[in-house]
């Protein structure tokens, strides 16, 4: 081997702002995404805290009704389109997919950079409504017609922003599919690919094939607002329900855009911290495809009370229950992976366990919503709000933070303070459940969502929930402060493989050099998690 230490990391090859924002290196683009994502996430979270503050007591606490409505819309738009849909693919997918496949970049590096720029433009458009026009939209992130056509707030800009962000998502998906088909290192067949790559593959197909539908739907809303007449207007024979169909044809598959990459991350962390192969590799890999596929056909479960035909309600409810099966397969295989492992309890594993627990709660509440009788009662109540925060934040959000703790030493070449990370995790976990569990209760009691004010009998759970949001915020600040240390070049340096992982990214330097590898990566003999034949990794 040549002198390894002379290899410059991707951080050090070129300096200056322009070397970042015009870089076509997938690792730099990933970090661009990370920083911009966190910024928008912090805006979204602040809005969330404001909402909780407003809901502390019945009546007005902080803002007017209209402002509240704009806050939850912007909160939803930011969290969905700016944070959770891009989150894991755009940050960890971009950074690690090429490395895990043993190549030096994605298939279309320039397109990759373009997708970040498009993302930024879309994000700025979404946030510009705070300053320009008649204020942010007040429609909810679903932009249901006809209210979204009638309201005087700046819906047009918000909708166009979502349209532009869709493009960014499509470009990322397209890039990943081609990369996975074309750039796997020799010997790495599809069935020897790490599960994270499988998850991204399934996700990318959803991004590619579902996003265009919402694109055109949102353009129709724009046309309606601009021309003053439109396709969803009943007075000319249109049907507002059709809007909902088109919206959910995208937006239900989109929830699996949020969930599948998280499943992938979990499937990476479990073998590493159990030091054994994953249980049921093929079952996990193919269940991702199954979820992606079935997920296309169940959008109607968001519309059970819209006056849809009984036949459709029947079919959509039945199909909804089918997605639970591949998810169940995953959960069981994950738990079985812990069996007879040699388990090393580290912060990423804590996030993994919390993920499984919370995602189950989220998933099971999803089943309650998927059943017709119960959804009639629970639709558009806080039960739904509880459900989706459990899956999105308790699931994907926790996977995101887990992934950040897991790959952190690889990205920055340094380790954070583990004790601190554990403390932050515990506070985070308690705060999370304190914030969202009461929402399930208050939903069962019948409190509708998107309510600025509520009846006195809903007071107690709302109060607990608001206090929970403060606990959660504390945990989060601790966590971020701990992680920020490495960013500022504090914390001990680590070698190539601090967690004793097996996928290819652990064979290279931390942080990786520009072309990702300083020596030829070796793939394990029997599949990606074959710890018995793990290639020796010399520093």
């Amino acid at each position, binding site marked *: 081997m040549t002198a390894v230490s002379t290899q410059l990391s991707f951080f050090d090859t070129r300096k200056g702002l322009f070397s970042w924002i015009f870089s076509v290196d997938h690792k730099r683009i990933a970090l661009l995404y990370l920083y911009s994502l966190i910024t928008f996430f912090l805006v979204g979270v602040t809005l969330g805290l404001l909402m909780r503050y407003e809901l502390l007591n019945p009546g007005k606490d902080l803002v007017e009704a209209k402002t509240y409505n704009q806050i939850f819309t912007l909160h939803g738009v930011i969290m969905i389109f700016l944070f959770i849909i891009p989150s894991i693919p755009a940050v960890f997918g971009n950074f690690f997919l090429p490395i895990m496949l043993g190549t030096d970049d994605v298939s279309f590096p320039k397109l990759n950079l373009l997708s970040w720029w498009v993302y930024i433009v879309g994000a700025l458009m979404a946030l510009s409504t705070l300053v320009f026009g008649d204020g942010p939209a007040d429609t909810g992130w679903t932009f249901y017609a006809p209210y979204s056509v009638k309201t005087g707030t700046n819906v047009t800009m918000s909708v166009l922003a979502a349209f532009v962000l869709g493009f960014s998502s499509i470009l990322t998906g397209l890039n990943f599919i081609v990369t996975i088909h074309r750039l796997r290192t020799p010997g790495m067949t599809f069935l020897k690919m790490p599960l994270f790559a499988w998850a991204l593959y399934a996700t990318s197909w959803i991004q590619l094939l579902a996003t265009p539908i919402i694109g055109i739907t949102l353009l129709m809303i724009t046309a309606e607002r601009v021309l003053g007449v439109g396709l969803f207007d009943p007075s000319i024979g249109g049907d507002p329900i059709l809007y909902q169909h088109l919206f959910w044809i995208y937006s239900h598959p989109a929830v699996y855009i949020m969930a599948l990459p998280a499943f992938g991350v979990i499937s990476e962390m479990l073998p590493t911290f159990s030091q054994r192969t994953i249980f049921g590799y093929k079952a996990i890999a193919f269940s991702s495809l199954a979820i992606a596929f079935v997920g296309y056909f169940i959008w109607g479960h968001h519309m059970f009370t819209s*006056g849809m035909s009984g036949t459709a309600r029947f079919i959509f409810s039945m199909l909804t229950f089918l997605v639970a099966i591949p998810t169940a397969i995953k959960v069981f295989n994950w738990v079985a992976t812990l069996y007879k*492992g040699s388990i090393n309890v580290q912060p990423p594993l804590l996030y993994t366990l919390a993920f499984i627990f919370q995602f189950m709660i989220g998933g099971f509440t999803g089943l309650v919503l998927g059943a017709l009788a119960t959804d009639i009662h629970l639709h*558009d109540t806080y039960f739904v709000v509880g459900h989706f925060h459990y899956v999105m934040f308790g699931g994907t959000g926790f996977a995101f933070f887990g992934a950040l703790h897991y790959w952190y030493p690889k990205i920055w070449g340094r380790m954070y303070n583990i004790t601190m990370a554990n403390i932050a995790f515990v506070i985070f976990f308690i705060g999370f459940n304190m914030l969202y569990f009461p929402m399930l209760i208050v939903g069962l009691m019948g409190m509708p969502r998107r309510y600025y004010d509520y009846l006195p009998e809903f007071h107690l759970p709302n109060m607990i929930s608001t206090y929970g949001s403060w606990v959660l915020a504390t945990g989060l600040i601790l966590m971020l402060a701990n992680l920020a240390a490495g960013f500022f070049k504090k914390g001990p340096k680590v070698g190539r493989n601090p967690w004793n992982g097996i996928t290819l990214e652990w064979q290279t330097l931390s942080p990786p050099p520009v072309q990702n590898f300083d020596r030829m990566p070796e793939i394990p003999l029997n599949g990606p998690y074959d710890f018995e034949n793990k290639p020796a990794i010399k520093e």
Partner: protein
Amino acid sequence: MRASASTFAQGVDFSLYVIVGISVFFLIGITIVMLYFVFRYNKKRNPVATNIEGSHKLEVIWTAIPTLLVMVMFYFGWMGYKPLRKAPDGALEVKAYGQMWKFSFEYPDGRITDSLVVPLGKPVKVNLVSRDVLHSFFIPAFRMKEDMVPGKDNFLWFEATEKGRFDILCAEYCGQLHSYMLSSVTVVEDAQYEQWLASTAGTSNEHPGLALLKQNACLTCHSQDGSKIIGPSFKGVFGKTEIVVTDGVEREIVIDEAYISRSIKQPNADVVKGYMKGLMVSYEAVLTDEQIASITDYIKTLQ
């Protein structure tokens, strides 16, 4: 959970218990197994891991069991729901109107009320009509909900099993005062209901114009005391000089009978400066010219 006061409540609650029961069982079971593994196979206790690739038998088992269970859940969900869509013949039919941000009800005899009064133990079919945007008619105590969709006739029906007053909430986001779009349903004995039906509505001696304003939910947006809610206040509005925007051009007008009538029939033709277009819907099909005259009459008195 709230009182369960309709014939469906039982079916809905039962399917809820089935699903939650199965779920809690798996949630607790899986969590305990998971934590046990983490404890038992901790690297202190189990320094060397055993590689187990998987097991076909287990995969089949844990595909089959959830499949079975979700079909059970689906079945109960469907059974609990089925009666909701079939209103029995001869049910008492009431029309419910939703508009920004008020429910109103029209009984077969033409009486219009703000809240619902129904007889105990009799099926009631509510036909749902929206005058502007989406709303949803939600009675938590009855476990009932259905959207009000402009241009589409939806309905729901129920049979109350308990006397008392229950909340009606709007469960589909419909704009600024969505959370204040409340009403109630009062369930009374048959005899009381007959009595209520017989009592003549509107015995109060209020101005007929005011009655109309209340009835049509004008007052959710327009105050009578000068304060600004969603629309301009009615106080002192008659005879006032005002700036309106017509087709994007500002102009000054003096408010007279014709203007008020136009504002009610085509609210978006002239939009008062500083207010949003599109919020107020046309009442052309709802109010007759006489009624508008009566409203105008009343507005004149608010000086």
